């Protein structure tokens, strides 16, 4: 029953994503064709032709139906700037983003949880104050600015644009090393920003557990402080933190957009930037639907994962 409810909720959310994607780009004031062709010489006939091409001359319900049925088929329309199907363009850029976001999230989760645990366990210690202070400061730092600073400070040490050099040897090892070399600065930027959030979340999660009676029992049994922390407190505190990591997936998405823009990392984030500078409405709409859909799915996963990891949840 609970499972069915979760899936139903996620399906409803996906439907809302589709509806939002449609209305955001149609009901807002202004003619999309006018803003699409802003700054380019166009005649009224050309605009009418564009309108017909994008189906903008039909009634709103008709437009929605054709949009929605195409969406179900995986057809996101045609990109205005790339002159290719939006779905193809997005798929092409998926790999680099998964690489960057995956690397950064993995490092940020491990580092953030470790920092959070250490500072909560020794609350008020120098370590705690430094970690909390640095986390709060990093939370205030705009991602893109941090990226620019890193780029300026490291100079020529790391490549700052793109994902690979054109003159690298074609064998796998050199290619992988090259991509890894390019990956350093963008992932450090992303880790710094996201990790701060994770550390704060883990810290407060563990603080909630600190005065739980079962920890007193564990101590009364004569367990070493280290064991009380590792075996008893952390496993309980880490569950809500892990769920929050999934729930804040949107944060990573936002970070990826600015990081990729600063470092010209050829993923979805940079594609967002291309789409908004166009402006390429169909590409932007496709990106919105895909990223929002991915976030909804991540949340569903978080829910399911939480149910598997934490038997207490099933009772509720």
């Amino acid at each position, binding site marked *: 029953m609970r499972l069915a409810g979760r899936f139903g909720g996620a399906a*409803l*959310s996906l439907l*809302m*994503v589709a509806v939002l994607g449609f209305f*955001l*780009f149609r009901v*807002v*004031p*202004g003619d*999309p064709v006018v*803003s699409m062709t802003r700054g380019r010489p166009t005649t009224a006939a050309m605009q009418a032709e564009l309108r017909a091409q994008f189906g903008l001359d039909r009634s709103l319900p008709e437009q929605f139906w054709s949009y929605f049925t195409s969406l179900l088929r995986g057809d996101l329309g045609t990109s205005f700037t790339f002159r290719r199907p939006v779905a193809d363009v997005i798929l092409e850029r998926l790999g680099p983003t998964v690489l960057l976001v995956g690397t950064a999230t993995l490092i940020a989760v491990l580092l953030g949880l470790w920092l959070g645990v250490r500072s909560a366990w020794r*609350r*008020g210690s120098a370590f705690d104050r430094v970690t909390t202070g640095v986390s*709060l*400061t990093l*939370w*205030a*730092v*705009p*991602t*893109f*600015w941090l990226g*620019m*600073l890193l*780029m*300026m400070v490291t*100079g020529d040490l790391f490549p*700052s644009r793109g994902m690979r050099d054109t003159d690298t040897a074609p064998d796998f090892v050199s290619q992988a090393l090259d991509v890894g070399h390019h990956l350093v600065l963008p992932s450090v930027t992303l880790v710094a920003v996201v990790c701060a959030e994770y550390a704060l979340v883990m810290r407060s999660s563990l603080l909630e557990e600190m005065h739980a009676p079962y920890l007193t029992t564990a101590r009364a049994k004569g367990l070493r402080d280290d064991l009380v922390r590792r075996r008893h407190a952390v496993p309980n505190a880490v569950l809500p933190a892990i769920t929050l990591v999934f*729930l804040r*997936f*949107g*944060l990573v*998405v*936002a970070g990826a*957009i*600015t990081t990729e*823009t*600063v470092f010209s990392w050829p993923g979805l984030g940079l594609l*967002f*930037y291309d*789409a*908004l*500078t166009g*402006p390429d*409405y169909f590409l*932007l*709409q496709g*990106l*919105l639907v895909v*990223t*929002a859909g991915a*976030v*909804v799915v991540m*949340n569903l996963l978080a829910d399911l994962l939480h149910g598997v990891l934490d038997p207490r949840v099933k009772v509720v």
Partner: protein
Amino acid sequence: MSTFRAGLLAQRTGTAGAAVLVAAAVIALVAPLLIPADALDVTRVTAAAWQLPGAGHWLGTDHTGRSVALLMAQGTGTSLFVGLTAAVLSVGIGTLVGVLSGHFGGLLAGALLRVTDFFLVLPALVLAIALSTVLPRGLGTIILAIGLTSWPSTARMVRAQTLTIEARPFVERARALGGGHAHVIGRHVLPSVVPLVLVNATLAVASAIVAESTLAFLGLGDPTRISWGALLHQAQLHGAVPQRAWWYLLPPGLAIVAVVLAFTLVGRALEAVVTPKR
């Protein structure tokens, strides 16, 4: 003892944050009055571009020869104004949705909760980018884009508080005595929600300022106004990084960090006052 020390620390950092904010507000109010229009007009500046900090331009000059210090001062107002108004809009919507969904049960509450949860998980920046791309460029668009996408967390919190208050006996008593919706909301729910909303608003300003700088950096800002984010956009566009123009890159970012951190610290200090630890 240690909680007392932590509380005191929050107060002290809160005071420091408040001092930073007062300084920023003074700069924002005074700068437009003192800076001559000529100094910020690209066509009328006489200084050389990319000058290092020194006499005359104590933060150096930008890619057109304008003084970075003056640009920074001028940008303070825009960044603060957008941050404050977007936060008011966001917290206003959040409070309204939260109180309504907490007070009225049934279909309305269910629908509002559904919508809140939906927007809570969506990446706000993505929505804000979409909104500000579609709407005409301007200060109003930025404020709308940030305000309309960042309200759900406030709504959740206000809803929880509303539910807690409405379960209390004195609200039941007020209802039994014939108090209508308006009475219960106006006299009991809102007053208990206000402290929470204030804390939330302070933190919301912090994230709104970061959001504004991000949108401006992506080129979605008001092209006629100078803001800290817009300065960084210009710096990136004209190659301040390869030029190693630290005097152009550092001030806007540091200013954002200082003000955002100040709002966060004040918010945390307020939180400590409003919700004393058990």
